């Protein structure tokens, strides 16, 4: 059991490194920073809805398209950003930027993710009454939710499939219970993450104890 977990851990550790290599082989740091800034800017400009929307978009961009991160890593980053204070997209940019180019990367990524809302809001604050009462804008924002929902569904289907692939009943059960708690019972995300952290620690203790017995 422990052996299996260690192997799994090692595999997970290597996978993103390989994927990342494929993504930025032969690129200078300057190019990386520019790509980071550009992609954060575009993602942030198109994120309608809450923080988890941008996580889905980031997963598609950085994991599926650019291959900079592994999927597990992206989920870890999401869990960390959710447990830190502050806006989720900004937190995620800090960590992703740090991962790709160190502290400078964090600055660049955060700049990319806060500039679009700052520019848009500065313009809108001048004539916000016209904006708020505009019929066409209201319709466009309403229908756009269908597209946003489709993007999140697509990402969640892939992620949930991978959780099921671990074939650990504990993980699958945790996913289902966490969903019911978050969606139907309105339990806060922070609490869910803390409880799962506790379960993870217990799981670790059980594994260590089993290893000792054997």
């Amino acid at each position: 059991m422990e052996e299996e977990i260690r192997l799994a851990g090692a595999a997970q550790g290597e996978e993103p490194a390989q994927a990342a290599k494929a993504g930025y082989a032969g690129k200078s740091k300057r190019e990386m920073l520019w790509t980071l800034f550009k992609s954060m800017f575009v993602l942030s400009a198109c994120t309608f809805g809450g923080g988890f929307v941008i996580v889905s978009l980031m997963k598609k961009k950085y994991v599926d398209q650019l291959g900079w991160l592994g999927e597990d890593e992206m989920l870890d980053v999401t869990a960390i950003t959710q447990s830190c204070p502050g806006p989720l997209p900004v937190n995620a940019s800090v960590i992703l930027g740090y991962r790709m180019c160190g502290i400078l990367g964090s600055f660049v990524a955060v700049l990319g993710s806060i500039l679009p809302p700052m520019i848009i809001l500065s313009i809108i604050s001048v004539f916000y009454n016209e904006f708020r009462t505009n019929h066409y804008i209201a319709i466009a924002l309403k229908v756009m939710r269908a597209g946003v929902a489709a993007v999140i569904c697509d990402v969640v289907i892939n992620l949930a499939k991978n959780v099921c692939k671990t074939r650990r009943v504990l993980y699958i059960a945790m996913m289902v219970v966490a969903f019911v708690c978050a969606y139907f019972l309105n339990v806060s995300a922070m609490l869910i993450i803390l409880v799962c952290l506790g379960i993870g620690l217990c799981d670790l203790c059980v594994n260590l104890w089993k290893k000792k017995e054997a």
Partner: protein
Amino acid sequence: MDKLLQLFLSFFQVGLFSVGGGYAAIPLIQDQIVNVTGMMTLEEFTDLITIAEMTPGPISINSSTFVGTRLAGPFGAIVCTLGCILAPFIICLVMAYFYYKYRNFSGVQNVLGALRPATVALIGSAGASILVLALFQSKWAGIQLANFQWIEFVLFGVCLFLLRKYKISAIATILGSGAVGTVVYLLKDMVLR
């Protein structure tokens, strides 16, 4: 200058204490801006939230820019936004440092492994909320079949199909659904009239 400093400190607190995403920040901002400092009326604040929800980007960045611009011009916007992200920036950087230092240890993997299903569930829950809002114009508890939105349902289906089958880009999906949906609604209005 006093005003800018006060704005900075207010939003620094908002950034530091808003754990758990954008909607956790709204009551904090309200408290700072309306109740503690009296820089805005409750009415102005309600408008602010409406606008912040309608525009792209994180809600706390949106509201700090909006409050800053209205109270102290573009410079105010920059001061508020910086105040809002300073504390999270430092905390996340520290977390990132420790995560990348220790993530490959098997024990850490074991614990992080238990967090992943929860994260998937949280993203799923956010998706379910938006889907229900798009299809029924209400939250889950208030669903009425009479409010079922056919246009959104078809749009959702087509988008999901294109995403899964042809792997089209997420941003194209969101912007495309907005454009196509608006045209369909306008055509429908014309036909019914």
